[in-house]
């Protein structure tokens, strides 16, 4: 059953249909929030709040794809968290349950594994140096792989603005990565 059908059922009071929407989208929203905020606990809070907001707004939710709308709400929630967040010490490699959320390819040798881990850390840190608007656009496109149309809906800006903002964000990110420990050999590996 597609999102629209689930949404229609949820709008009529079907809680299970809404739960199915949650199941379908919670991980991608969590991934986005984690990349924007860098803190698993905050990211989980954002997802929770996003779905609670969606739950009470289901009756007025029409004319827009639920996926783009959820991303928009999650972005707004993330910005709220950024504005009032009290920095919590957290290891971004661990999620709220203490599990490692990303590890280098286990097939890599020890040295390559270290390099890969450094590269992942460098990318994450560089991402966090971007301004919120630029961080959001690059995460939506390159992490969550939203279409330009979905990004336009989620960010509430025209597609042309999405593209120009994305180009600037990617360029800024490349510049930020240039000065990191992971930079040597970085481009060559991916070119």
């Amino acid at each position, binding site marked *: 059953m597609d999102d629209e059908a689930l949404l229609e059922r949820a709008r009529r009071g079907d809680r299970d249909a809404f739960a199915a929407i949650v199941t379908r989208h919670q991980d991608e929203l969590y991934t986005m929030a*984690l990349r924007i905020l860098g803190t698993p606990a905050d990211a989980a809070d954002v997802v929770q709040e996003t779905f609670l907001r969606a739950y009470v707004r289901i009756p007025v939710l*029409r004319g*827009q794809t639920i996926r783009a709308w959820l991303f928009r709400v999650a972005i707004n929630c993330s910005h709220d968290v950024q504005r009032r967040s009290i920095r919590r010490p957290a290891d971004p490699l661990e999620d709220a349950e203490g599990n490692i959320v990303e590890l280098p390819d286990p097939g890599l040798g020890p040295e390559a594994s270290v390099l890969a881990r450094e590269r*992942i850390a460098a990318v994450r840190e560089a991402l966090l140096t971007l301004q919120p608007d630029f961080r959001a656009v*690059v995460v939506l496109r390159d992490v969550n792989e939203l279409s330009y149309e979905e990004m336009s809906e989620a960010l509430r800006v025209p597609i042309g603005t999405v593209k120009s903002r994305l180009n600037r964000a990617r360029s800024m990110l490349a510049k930020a990565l240039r000065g990191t420990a992971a930079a040597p050999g970085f481009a*060559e590996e991916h070119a």
Partner: protein
Amino acid sequence: MTPRRHLDDLFTAAYDDELSPIDEARFQAHIQTCAPCAEAYAEFRATVEALRELAPARMPHIVHLPSTPPVAERSVRPRIGMGWFNLGIVRRFPATAIAGAAAVVLIIAALAHGNGGTPSPTAGSANGQNAAGAAAPSSSKNLAACTQIIGITGASPPVTFTHQDLATDAAQPALHLVLAAPSLTVTAGKAAYVYAQLSEPFASLSLPGSAATAPAARTVLPCVSIAVMDARSNLFVPIPASTGEFGNPASPGHGTVTPVPADQYQGASGVSGPFLTFEVPAGLAPGTEIHVTATVPAGYTGPGSPPLIAELTLTTG
């Protein structure tokens, strides 16, 4: 002039295969002959591909939903309590409890009949007239949410309302939901003002096949809810009586949030528009957050009926 300055703008289009064949050929030709540009583009590509290598993350715990069906959330008087969650969840995930309370706060009330009557010179009084018309049917008291539309005179936020949140629909760029305030700082115990308006292209409301007419804006009051952070519980709770229907004195919950004549709000005498006022509760500590949320009325049948949401966070000074 460095070649890179010219190609920077094309990197995303090139990477996403969105260049025209001619531009693509030119881009590739330049890259092959210009070492700085080739290096910069390789770095650009490496950055994007490194981003795409970041592993997808998984939500570490389940999302907790209210036990009530979604449509049950339309009630005018939202109830906030531990009944929404089991206590174990609250203990384990206090942030979840806060999010749940915030969600309750977002429950929107209100709106009365949009009788489509003659607009008055000021939106405030226009609301009043519509409100009077809407108050008459007893059924209006049974409205559980913003299910009816109040037509108002369209306007723009005055220049003094510099703090604005504008929600638009990409598919309907003329459709605007705007929420504005003259300041994000309010004073406990005193009135505060916000401006809230939903406008839409009137032409798109006409029946298919009807004679084409020049587009004219139609403007209605959005649903607005106001909630304050409670310092002791760390929860957002609605300001008492702030979830009623704007402009409908007969509506349950109507009280402190009302449209006001344009010349009664501070510092903008003579400017018309849908101004809404509410009393900031006395005794709030400085720095207390007050969330104002405007949404499209549930009964709205305009183009797309999009889930536009505009929000402002006010803080007590």
